[in-house]
């Protein structure tokens, strides 16, 4: 069933009895060509690109809970292509282009809103850094505009421009940056993959990865054994747990990132705004809540909740940036499990076990990567060659020291990103 305005009208006028389930609920088969472990954004996108780009549909996505119940189900929804280093620059640029065609591709409204993203800066040195960033974005073929103080004021009149510690010197505007509705992305990819014959298997936890003679032969699950020629681990913060089933240790440490939403407000923040004092970012959802977040809590965690010190720090940042936010009530908060790597950049690669593939290490930036990650992993699975947009996301770069992508320039070691 295709979604369009005419169908909406017809169904609305006839009691909405014609809608069909968005995806099937199939019984797992005994074997598939490819098994994707993880039914989140990246896993579902991979399944669809396998079907659409490569005609490979004998695929199962195995999700231990419900589709999209992980980090894709709760994040700060930011979509942007403003990375700096080779490896990241071309990847996120590609991802944004995929985002721009996504709703037409999937026949699903993911509410992709290219409202513009502004990185504020508060010193001459920070301006220099963002000028450099903007030039890198333009060199990549993307869009960047340098705003001076008045330029920022025209877009964001509610900021504390003369804050003594963080006066607003200006901002880097990325007009094509913005937000999207995170759930819709998962559902859109799931529906599209299912329509092409991919089996989406929920409530199916992988409990073992079968390896014989250095080659993967299948998985054990809570819904039975499934043979597979190729298996991909796409489980974000739980990558270490799943990889351990195959005897692998990963360069990943899982950390908690908190995020927050206020009560619904009339439109006040029309962009995505990031504060140059450190790690704070805010935007407004279409329901009216202000969606914001900051740093990791900075200790290893699978708890999916954080603690008060970082919560207070984020609230302090919000109040410093735009004191008017003090009028709003915070409605809810949550924490996700972030798969942190030593350089803060991701991994899309084969492993030392034949037929076992890895897509992880997204740290706290995986949402915007969903399309390009699925696209690149599908390419790798289908051809056993990395796609050119993700060729640098090597698993062995930490061991060799070659091709590290340390965007923050803090050092390629754990706990600095």
């Amino acid at each position, binding site marked *: 069933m295709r979604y369009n305005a005419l169908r909406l009208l017809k169904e609305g006028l006839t009691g909405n009895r014609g809608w069909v389930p968005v995806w099937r609920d199939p019984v797992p088969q005994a074997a598939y060509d490819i098994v994707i472990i993880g039914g989140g954004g990246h896993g579902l996108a991979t399944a669809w690109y396998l079907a659409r780009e490569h005609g490979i549909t004998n695929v199962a996505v195995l999700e231990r809970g419900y589709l999209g119940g992980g980090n894709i189900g709760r994040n700060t929804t930011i979509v942007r292509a403003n990375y700096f280093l080779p490896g990241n620059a071309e990847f996120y640029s590609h991802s944004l282009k995929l985002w721009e065609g996504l709703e037409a591709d999937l026949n699903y409204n993911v509410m992709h809103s290219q409202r513009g993203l502004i990185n504020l800066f508060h010193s001459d040195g920070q301006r220099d850094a963002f000028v450099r960033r903007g030039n890198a974005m333009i060199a990549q073929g993307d869009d960047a505009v340098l705003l001076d103080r008045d330029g920022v004021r025209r877009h964001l009149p509610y900021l504390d421009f003369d804050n003594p510690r963080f006066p607003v010197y200006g901002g880097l505007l990325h007009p094509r940056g913005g937000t999207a509705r995170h759930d819709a992305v998962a559902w859109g990819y799931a529906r599209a993959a299912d329509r092409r014959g991919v089996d989406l298997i929920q409530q199916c936890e992988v409990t073992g990865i079968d390896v014989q003679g250095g080659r993967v032969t299948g998985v054990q699950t809570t819904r039975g054994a499934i043979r597979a020629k190729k298996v991909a681990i796409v489980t974000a913060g739980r990558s270490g*747990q799943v990889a351990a089933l195959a005897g692998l240790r*990963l*360069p990943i440490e899982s950390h908690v990132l908190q995020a927050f939403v206020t009560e619904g407000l009339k439109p006040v923040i029309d962009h995505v705004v990031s504060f140059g004092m450190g790690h704070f970012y805010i935007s407004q959802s279409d329901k009216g809540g202000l969606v914001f977040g900051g740093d990791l809590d*900075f200790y*290893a965690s699978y708890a999916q909740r954080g603690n008060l010190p970082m919560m207070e720090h984020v609230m302090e940042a919000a109040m410093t940036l735009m004191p008017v936010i003090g009028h709003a009530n915070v409605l809810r908060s949550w924490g996700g499990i972030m798969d942190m790597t030593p350089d803060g950049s991701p991994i899309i690669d084969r492993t030392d076990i034949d037929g076992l593939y890895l897509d992880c290490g997204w740290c706290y930036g995986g949402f915007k990567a969903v399309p390009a990650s699925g696209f690149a992993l599908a390419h790798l699975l289908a051809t056993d060659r990395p796609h050119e947009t993700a060729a640098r996301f090597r698993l062995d770069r*930490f*061991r060799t020291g070659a091709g590290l992508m340390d965007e923050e320039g803090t050092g390629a070691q*754990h706990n600095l990103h």
Partner: protein
Amino acid sequence: MRLTCPFCGARDLREFSYTGAAVLCDRPAPDAGADVWDSYLHLRDNPAGVTRDLWYHGAGCCAWLVVERDTVSHAVLSVVLG
């Protein structure tokens, strides 16, 4: 969240910095080889359960502490000098 420093007693989380997994205390010999060094620097058990952290009491006595902690519940099981 609090940690009980052996010298200072139970103190707020803000007084401490997490510096990584406690394996960092076991620095390999310089000639131990690439596999050992890669494991030490990069590879992690990363358990969903009991783990051993290295914390620094920077706003207190500056002790380096090994904390046994559950990463799922955040329960702190023990804090000893590193």
